């Protein structure tokens, strides 16, 4: 039997049900055709007519997008509109018609292909990304000149809204689908950061991207359930699965409304314990969302996005600007910035290290920073300078030895001195934290706590290294259990060490975004969490339903458990007395358990 569950990346939440509809959006073939010399002027006029028509269509789309999604999203169309107004480009197309008697479509195709080739070879990744915009312009103008309508791909038969499947989706195309005809979008290419993904979220249309090979594996017309929250598509659902999917969507919407009504409420447990819920920031976009959800600062700002799509390392000035902006956005709150966590596939091109047989046990994170300190030093300088504008703190990933921490302190002192000597304004001191994400760090937590200002647990890596289970290996998915008693015991040791030394111990891994785990973590004594932006409302809500002493009682029981199953049973039983568990399961596909989202 064919696999019925396709996995991709959820880029816009919600569940959509409907028939799959494949939409192909490809460049037309232009046949070679010359025009008679007395028809040349008419051909040029035909070119301008087509360009004007497409231009006004893009203008309409721009207005339409502004109304539906906002001014920022509408700017996506600016570049395409200006390309069609480019006087030099159009003059060159005209010259080809005049001088070589090419047809308008042939001349336009020739010039756009020339430009695309130029851009595609560019060393600038940003310019290469714009090739898609140019291709969009080319497609529209050529179709117009060839008298081909592409609007038919936007029409759908039948009265049921469809799930549109495409190889790739552009914002221009997405906005043209009628909202009541399309229930969801699925694409083979693209990720969370694609323009179309951002637009789907603004429009509130469920969307899953990165479904590699999906269009070869299913057929157009088949009924599917698309889960934009979890990045999955279920093919040919049974009636029972359909009912379950409708129910989870109903619950999700219900939760969303309740969470919305609850927005801005203080994150305090029923017995009055304040809990700091900070945001995890992967991309600059997350900051606005975190602010909207009322996060109490940033608990983990990953700096790897600074390296995306570039060959060199970011400059000191650039990093100062980024860190300052984050600090200003959260003026009265801590902003915890993690130093580069390079490794695996996250190397900038200039490192190009040898492939390693065990990358997760290899040259990554603090090891790279200490072996190639010139980049680390630039980052530390930027952090010291930016700290003048807010409560910036730095956190070191994958520490396994006290020497690493000591070495970082030396480097930090050297850079502070160098800045002072150069007369550059910078902070006097920098709170230094250690991520506890290996058994080595957890077992040395006493020694580490005595030498740093705060601890933060990276639960996914701590689980992976404690259980010797690769977090990325689908075959190991069931064995990857953050609620394994061995992990729970380490979590307990870490928080009590923090308490003994009077330093903050927080959780910044995925567990902090999972309500069931948050129940346990509060019971163990954690009061500071860094939560994925999408989960901020639900974690806040859960915290407000909990009773700290009840959590602590449950945690005491959990610490005596021998298996992950026992841990989970204790937790769910205790949690069920405070929270409707169905509320927490909202948005899941039928058949997927709560723990699968961890």
């Amino acid at each position, binding site marked *: 039997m064919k696999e019925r569950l396709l996995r991709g990346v959820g880029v816009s939440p919600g569940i959509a049900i409907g028939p799959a509809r494949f939409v192909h959006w490809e460049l037309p073939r232009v046949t070679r055709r010359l025009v008679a010399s007395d028809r040349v002027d008419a051909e040029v006029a035909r070119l301008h007519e087509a360009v004007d028509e497409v231009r006004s269509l893009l203008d309409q789309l721009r207005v339409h997008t502004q109304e539906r999604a906002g001014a920022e999203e509408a*700017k996506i169309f*600016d*570049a395409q509109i*200006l*390309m069609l*107004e*480019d*006087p*030099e*480009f159009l003059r060159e197309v005209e010259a080809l018609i005049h001088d070589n008697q090419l047809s308008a479509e042939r001349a336009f195709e020739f010039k756009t292909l020339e*430009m695309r080739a*130029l*851009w595609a070879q*560019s*060393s*600038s990744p*940003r*310019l290469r990304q*714009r090739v898609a*915009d140019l291709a969009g312009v080319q497609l529209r103008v050529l179709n117009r000149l060839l008298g081909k309508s592409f609007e038919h791909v936007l029409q759908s038969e039948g009265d049921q809204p469809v799930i549109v499947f495409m190889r790739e989706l552009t914002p221009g195309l997405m906005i043209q689908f009628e909202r009541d005809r399309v229930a969801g979008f699925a694409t083979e290419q693209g990720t969370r950061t694609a323009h179309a993904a951002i637009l789907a979220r603004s429009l509130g249309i469920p969307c899953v991207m990165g479904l590699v090979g999906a269009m070869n594996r299913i057929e157009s017309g088949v009924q599917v359930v698309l889960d934009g929250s979890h990045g999955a598509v279920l093919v040919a659902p049974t009636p029972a699965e359909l009912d379950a999917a409708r129910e989870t969507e109903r619950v999700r919407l219900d939760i969303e409304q309740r969470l919305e009504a609850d927005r801005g409420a203080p994150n305090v447990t029923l017995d009055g314990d304040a809990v700091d819920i900070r945001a995890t920031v992967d991309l*600059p976009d997350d900051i606005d969302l975190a602010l909207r959800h009322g996060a109490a600062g940033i608990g983990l700002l990953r700096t790897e996005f600074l390296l995306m799509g570039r060959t060199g390392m970011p*400059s000191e000035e*650039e990093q100062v*600007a*980024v860190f300052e*902006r984050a600090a200003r956005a959260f003026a009265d709150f801590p902003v915890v910035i993690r130093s580069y966590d390079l490794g695996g596939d996250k190397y900038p091109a200039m490192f190009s290290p040898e492939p390693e047989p065990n990358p997760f046990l290899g040259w990554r994170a603090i090891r790279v920073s200490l072996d190639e300190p010139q980049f680390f030093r630039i980052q530390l300088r930027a952090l010291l300078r930016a700290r003048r504008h807010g409560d910036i703190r730095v956190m070191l990933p994958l520490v396994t030895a006290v020497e690493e921490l000591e070495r970082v302190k030396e480097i930090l002192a050297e850079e502070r001195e160098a800045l002072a000597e150069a007369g550059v304004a910078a902070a006097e001191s920098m709170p230094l934290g250690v991520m506890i994400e290996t058994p080595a760090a957890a077992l040395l937590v006493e020694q580490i706590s005595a030498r740093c200002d705060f601890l933060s647990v990276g639960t996914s890596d701590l689980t992976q290294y404690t259980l010797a289970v690769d977090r990325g290996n689908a075959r190991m998915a069931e064995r990857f259990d953050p609620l394994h008693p061995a992990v729970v015991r380490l979590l307990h040791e870490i928080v009590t060490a923090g308490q003994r030394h009077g330093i903050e111990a927080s959780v910044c891994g995925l567990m902090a975004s999972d309500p069931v785990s948050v129940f346990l973590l509060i019971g163990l004594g954690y009061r500071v969490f860094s939560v994925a932006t999408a989960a901020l409302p639900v974690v806040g809500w859960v915290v407000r339903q909990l009773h700290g002493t009840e959590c602590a009682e449950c945690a005491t029981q959990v610490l005596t458990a021998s298996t992950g199953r026992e841990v989970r049973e204790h937790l769910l039983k205790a949690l069920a007395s405070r929270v409707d568990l169905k509320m927490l399961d909202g948005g899941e596909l039928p058949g997927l358990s709560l723990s699968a989202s961890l």
Partner: protein
Amino acid sequence: MAVAERTVRVENRLGIHARPAAEIVKVAARFSCMIQLAKDAQWVNGKSIMGVMTLAAEQGSELTIRAEGDDAQAAVDALAECAGKKWEEW
């Protein structure tokens, strides 16, 4: 005929990508003079977005602006401000 020329450093972190290029072209279109931009001796028409984007001027690179025509000086000043600006984005 008036000729003006000026070289500016690109300060924007993301360089002159599509959006700043669009702004530059919009500013250039307000002037009647001929406008050319160059990076590393590659010259393009300052009123052509395709041309300006093709330069792919990254942060820290030097951009030369040259204008010929009645309003050349005003055009160069306006474009220098635009090209040297830090756009509100990361």
